[in-house]
């Protein structure tokens, strides 16, 4: 079942928190995963795999590099959920 972008943001923030310890409140739409949240490529992949499971979507490896901001990820997941 498709979720709202706000629900996806909250779920994604929990995943980021579990992997990195970053406070969920800090995971905001306009933040960059690398520049603002200091998440490296391997942690990003862990977040992607956990997001796939949580939101029942597939995020191909080639797509991961395009997910630069939290908004990019939320939008991709929202669209993929249809």
């Amino acid at each position, binding site marked *: 079942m498709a979720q709202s972008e706000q629900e996806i943001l909250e779920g994604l923030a929990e995943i980021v928190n579990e992997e990195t310890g970053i406070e969920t409140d800090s995971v905001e739409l306009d933040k960059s995963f690398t520049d603002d949240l200091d998440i*490296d*490529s*391997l942690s*990003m*992949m*862990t977040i*992607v*795999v956990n997001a796939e499971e949580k939101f029942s979507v597939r995020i191909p*490896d080639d797509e*991961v590099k395009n997910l630069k901001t939290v908004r990019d990820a939320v939008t991709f997941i929202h669209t993929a959920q249809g």
Partner: protein
Amino acid sequence: MTKSIRTAPAPKGTGTLTTVDGVRHARIWGVGAYRPERVVPNSELVDRIDSTDQWIRDRSGIISRRRAARDESIIDMAEHAARDALAAAGLEPSQVGAILISTVTHLLSTPAAAPMLAERLGVQCPAFDVSAACAGYCYGISLANDMVRGGSAEHVLVIGVEKLSDFTDYDDRGSAFIFGDGAGAAVVGPSDTPGIGPTIWGSDGAQWQAIRQREPWLDAAGAPLDGHAVLTMAGQTVFRWAVWGMAPIAQQAIDKAGITIDDLDAFLPHQANMRIIDAMIKQLKLPADIPVARDIAETANTSAASIPLATERMLREGEIPHGGLALQIGFGAGLVYAAQVIVLP
């Protein structure tokens, strides 16, 4: 025009083949290792990739690696490890019945490295190379197990050896710090009890580009880097496959061996990256009291050599018990993988 078809003659039917009998079980009799003398700390590599020691440690867990001398070949390194393993097994080179070398850094496509090592050891047994990258050692153990049990050799020398410094692009931020040089060896021989569990192995050729020699040899000639071929790796793709793809394979090896994860005395994964090891432990739900190979910190990723190098160190330092059960899993370029539970020598 009609084609004339010859009628094949009937078989003579006068001879009956005899076959050799093997033994019911095989085990690893001893392991050996060779670490080149020169230690290369991260600080020697950071300038060319605009990085820091801490950045490399955070992303890989690697502190230093060994580098073979310029004139030191994989045959030289393999010989050291082989003699060490034979000594650990209590065997003379003359008792070796077959030699398998797993490597991707032998500089000749032919002949293989193994016959050259056989000559060094003064034997003329069957000798061939296995090309299964970072899974090469576990492939070799599986083959040796089958050879001993099938009766084609009594004692098989399995060697994982790499001189990856010859294939490293020291300007590539993604891989310049990952690789190291070294050799590890094991002797597989007959056993009264099961010593090598069933191997879970396979390949995923659709992902062949994830880790590879960047250019074919012909294209590498005349290319930058003085015509030298180097390795390239898609880090995120490999990370996903290694963790979420390989944890179920490791679990299958445990299940097929007829044991539970709690029965393990050691977990010996290929030393690809400390982050992969940590994530794999989490996925496997490995009990916290089981020792895990973390040789990568001072050895880096030595491909086919990583598992026997880690095994030898942990046994020598008393971290894991002789006679205990160890889960070993190799995975890498191909993509290929192999996992099995073994009894530690």
